[in-house]
């Protein structure tokens, strides 16, 4: 009992130390950003508070562990179909969210699990959607590529198709005069789709509050950027749209650039384009080992030198903004959250058969849906 009390007291002493001993905030130098058609860019330093640091760390770690868990569940065939993992690119999702608010809008392509989380989804809902259960964020009907939350428009399977949608959302923001903006993401592969250029033109012509973000992870499925694009300077592809090229592995870099871009949009100057140079550790999807078009050494090198979570961790520890035990506690809490979510995702029941026909149209009255044979009909209730 005495030992227990002593242990208790010790941990109390340890936690009470945290408030007194840690640095509340610190300023870091961040990489200079390449500019296109801009006189000034984002600042060269970023200030990080302890709370922000812990929050970013926790979110990035959650995304990382969630993606690794999804990998595991996929190999156990509990998740089936298509699964595109986001580990390595966490700094992009977390950094972007740090530069905007939850009342702004965001739309991205199929590598969407990270964004679903930063935009307000829970790990439980995301994992249940991957396994196709009724507790999933899209009620089990969408799967990996189709996850949505408030002000987050997915999760889109067709490459490049989400960008004109983003422009439409931005138009709505401008029309309603609510000072919100839309962040429209796409990858280096999608950057060659015609509809992206159509969107550049429309948003520039009408000065829409849209931030185009190209997440350049160097490979469009298995094709490296040099082999797919005549110009790999994706931040300049908007031509008349101002552009920034940002280090996408540094969460502070991404955050400062997003803040800069958001100010640009909100001041009525129209669209702006950001290229985030980032990297994915997994292959394109779970059916891609990821090593036939790049070497393991390359992946290892990025992991050891530029891993976003390690970078943040080193910064916080070397500036005494957190203790290593504290970060370990966060790791343990995250692990537990993921385990619980995986448990839920595995045991939650599948959606009822009625859901097959629900929400095809918006209908007040239930209507009949023709089914596989002439005498079977299902009812669609919305």
């Amino acid at each position, binding site marked *: 009992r005495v030992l227990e009390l002593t242990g208790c007291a010790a941990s109390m002493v340890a936690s009470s130390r945290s408030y007194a001993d840690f640095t509340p905030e610190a300023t870091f130098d961040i990489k200079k950003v390449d500019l296109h058609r801009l006189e000034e860019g984002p600042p060269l330093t970023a200030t990080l508070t302890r709370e922000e640091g812990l929050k970013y760390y926790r979110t990035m770690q959650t995304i990382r562990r969630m993606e690794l868990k999804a990998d595991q569940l996929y190999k156990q065939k509990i998740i089936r179909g298509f699964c595109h993992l986001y580990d390595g690119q966490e700094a992009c999702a977390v950094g972007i969210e740090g530069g905007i608010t939850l009342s702004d809008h965001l739309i991205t392509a199929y590598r969407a699990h990270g964004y679903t989380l930063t935009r307000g989804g829970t790990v439980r809902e995301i994992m249940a959607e991957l396994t196709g259960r009724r507790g999933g964020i899209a009620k089990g009907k969408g799967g990996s590529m*189709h996850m949505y939350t408030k002000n987050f428009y997915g999760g889109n*399977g067709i490459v490049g198709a989400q960008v004109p949608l983003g422009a439409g959302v931005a138009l709505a923001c401008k029309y309603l005069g609510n000072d919100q903006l839309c962040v429209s993401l796409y990858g280096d592969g999608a950057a060659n789709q015609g509809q992206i250029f159509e969107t550049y033109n429309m948003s520039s012509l009408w000065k829409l509050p849209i931030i185009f973000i190209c997440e350049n992870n160097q490979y469009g499925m298995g094709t490296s950027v040099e082999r797919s694009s005549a110009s790999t300077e994706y931040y300049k592809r908007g031509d008349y749209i101002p552009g920034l090229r940002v280090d996408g592995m540094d969460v502070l870099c991404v955050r400062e650039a997003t803040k800069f871009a958001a100010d640009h949009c909100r001041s009525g100057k129209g669209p702006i384009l950001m290229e985030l140079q980032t990297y994915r550790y997994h292959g394109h999807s779970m059916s891609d080992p990821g090593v036939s078009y790049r070497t393991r050494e390359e992946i290892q090198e990025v992991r050891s030198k530029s891993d976003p979570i390690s970078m943040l961790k080193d910064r916080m520890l070397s500036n005494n903004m957190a203790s290593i035990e504290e970060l370990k506690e966060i790791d343990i809490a995250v692990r537990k959250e993921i385990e619980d979510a995986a448990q839920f995702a595995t045991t939650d029941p*599948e*959606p009822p058969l009625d859901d*097959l*026909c629900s929400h095809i149209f918006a209908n007040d009255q239930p209507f009949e849906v023709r089914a596989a044979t002439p005498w079977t009909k299902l009812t669609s209730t919305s």
Partner: protein
Amino acid sequence: NTMFSTSLLRVGSKLIGLLLTRKGHFNTLGLRNDFGFPPGLRTKTFLLGPTTKMNLFQSVTSALDNTLASDPTAVIFGEDVAFGGVFRCTVGLRDKYGKDRVFNTPLCEQGIVGFGIGAAVAGATAIAEIQFADYIYPAFDQIVNEAAKYRYRSGNLFDCGNLTIRAPWGCVGHGSLYHSQSPEAFFAHCPGIKVVIPRGPVQCKGLLLSCIADQNPCIFFEPKILYRAAVEQVPTEAYTIPLSQAEVIQEGSDVTLVAWGTQIHVLMEVANMAQEKLGVSCELIDLQTILPWDTETVCKSVAKTGRLLISHEAPITGGFAAEISSTVQEECFLNLEAPIARVCGYDTPFPHIFEPFYIPDKWKCFDAIKKLISY
């Protein structure tokens, strides 16, 4: 000679055929398996010269190989075709014929088809690959408005007949919304192009070579679930199977069954079930060419049997079965003993988790036959 080789093939097929395990609708790989593929039983073979065991994607490679060898203007392009393609249909061709003849395009379907039309008009035999049929829609305008109408609008001065577009097609067990679609009905509505769908390796090679040779722009859909599952002895030399000719795979007297692609194998099992359990003799027809389709073979068969069942994975409303049904009732009204049955996919987007309920499996088709017989 043909009969001997055909029976040899039937014997051989039993040894060679690849049957999938049948536990419910999907095997452990998540692939749809409510049908088997014993080859040769359904193939009236065109045994021209030596044959090799090939699966569907290898038969595609073989057809493309023959084309690139015999036609110096032939080029193959599409997303990821250079290393062999995501379904291995173009493996080895770049090394053999050079990187100026087999090359990758960036991610731009509209651009790929537009570019293909131009190359075809200028005289090259252009073979474009769209990575999945689900992604063909950005190219829809190019196909329908440009390729299909080129000859017509120029008064036969120009045409893009040298263009062939290939795309993997149909459900696979885990494809969900955007890797499982069967869009043949959208293109069937467009005069000026041809739409062709094979049921196995022998048909695939013959029909693909016919499409390439045909002087009209052709869309060739390849059932992706059969890429590995369907294995047959396929002639290594080039040969063609005529377009717009349906094939009567099995003769029968009571019910006509019409389908194309993967669904043929499902209906084959249904026909066997009907024979065993109901004593019903089914005539099975593979339509092969969707547009322009062989009305004569189908109508002759319905005139004989009086009952028709058409089946496809695509949604029922506006699916190609509707066109067949309408034409048959015009031509064979007085021959019909029962309303024409269509067993198709539901009128929903191709589902994620609900796929086993959605697909027109053999039990739904069998049920339809029972109702046809007892009408």
